[in-house]
């Protein structure tokens, strides 16, 4: 007979009361990471707090900034018109996560709090300079996405705290963005390497470059030297090739069950090059129609 307790708060107030009463409780969103861990006996649970009925955390709103609630499903991010127009890289990354059946259940907050180095939505958030809103019973703090991830499966979240939303500044209309992923299978496989890229372009001149890499270091990372290198450059084929070599130097991949470190380095070079090339092509065609 199971001794596990189950609670299903309807709002944040109830949620924080429960969290205060039981420090050992497990926050359960889509459960797509947790259920698998539970099946494989990698975690023990004594008290499940279902987040899915905390409806106030399920939203996407746009005013000066765009705010996405932690309970927003990956499927919603993938299909939202706002995401597709404002942040193509986040919509594309969401589309690449698992299968339709997984994306219906999986949440944005769960993907970020789970903090896999390969987490699909993490690199877009880094590239978009997102701010994580973290609430406790009587506390609220804002943490830049760049400081949120601490290591594989580790974040700055403390016991009793909940990631409630991510706030994203809008991109000016001269930004173009893309997310590319390479995995062993087309669907349902975590990325061997993921690349999130946003460029502010004037024709084929790069005014600002932001590149995030997933699955090549203990956390998702940005590659500042490569970004610096690209800034104010005309993005010729040789410039792009040089930048993708630089990006390789900035990552620290490991050998694991899916791929060797050296194969991952190859992938970084190929994917960064592909991402930059396709954005410049898009930018160029825009210029022509102006």
């Amino acid at each position, binding site marked *: *007979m*199971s*001794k*596990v*307790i*189950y609670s*299903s708060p309807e709002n944040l107030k109830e949620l924080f009361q429960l969290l205060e009463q039981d420090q050992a409780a497990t926050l*359960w969103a*889509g*459960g*797509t990471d947790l*259920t*698998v861990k*539970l*099946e*494989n006996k990698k975690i023990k*649970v004594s008290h*499940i707090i*279902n987040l*899915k009925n905390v409806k106030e955390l399920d939203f996407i709103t746009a005013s000066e900034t765009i705010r996405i609630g932690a309970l927003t499903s990956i*499927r919603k991010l993938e299909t939202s018109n706002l995401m597709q127009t404002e942040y193509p890289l986040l919509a594309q990354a969401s589309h690449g996560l*698992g*299968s*339709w*059946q*997984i994306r*219906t*259940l999986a949440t944005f907050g769960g993907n970020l709090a789970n903090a896999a180095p390969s987490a699909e939505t993490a690199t877009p958030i880094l590239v978009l300079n997102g701010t994580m809103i973290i609430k406790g019973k009587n506390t609220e703090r804002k943490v830049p996405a760049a400081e949120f991830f601490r290591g594989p499966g580790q974040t700055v979240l403390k016991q009793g705290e909940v990631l409630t939303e991510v706030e994203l500044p809008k991109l000016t209309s001269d930004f173009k963005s893309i997310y590319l992923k390479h995995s062993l299978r*087309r*669907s*349902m496989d975590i990325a061997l390497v993921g690349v999130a890229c946003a460029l502010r372009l004037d024709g084929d001149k790069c005014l600002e470059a932001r590149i995030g890499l997933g699955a090549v270091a203990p956390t998702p990372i940005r590659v500042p030297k490569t970004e610096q290198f690209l800034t104010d450059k005309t993005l010729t084929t040789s410039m792009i090739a040089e930048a993708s070599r630089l990006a390789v130097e900035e990552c620290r991949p490991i050998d694991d069950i899916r791929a060797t470190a050296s194969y991952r380095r190859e992938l970084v070079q190929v994917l960064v090059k592909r991402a930059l090339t396709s954005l410049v092509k898009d930018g160029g065609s825009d210029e022509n129609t102006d």
Partner: protein
Amino acid sequence: MKIPISLTVNGDKFELLVAPTRKLVDVLREDLGFTGTKKGCGEGECGACTVLMDGEPVSSCLVLAPQAHGKTVVTVEGLESENGELDPVQESFMSKGAIQCGYCSPGMIMTSKALLKLNPHPTEEEVKDAISGNLCRCTGYQKIVDAVLDASEKRGR
């Protein structure tokens, strides 16, 4: 501690007691007898357990039974009409030879239903993308894709 839940499956309301870590797929198959839904990997990888929950395809092996409280679930048994007629998607799967051992079929058919509801006339690429979370070890997929396209054409007529 067991939790009382109520859910609607294929139009009928059920009330039962479940352990918090029990999965929806086990409730459907073992407690309620809807064995049409298959369980393959139990880890979200294969899609055999796909059902529609509030109209969206989900891997029922990843859903905690209490999380299905208040939800409307449709399994493959729910596609057949009252007088025993099969759904056009099921007909197409049979006529196009999209079923061999049949283990993946209930999941494939549920995902295909969800796709055709959203997008009545998908392209071949869109079909492949939609069913990419459903593994089949027998057919090599082409006949399944053909069946979904066939079902979509039937709708057009």
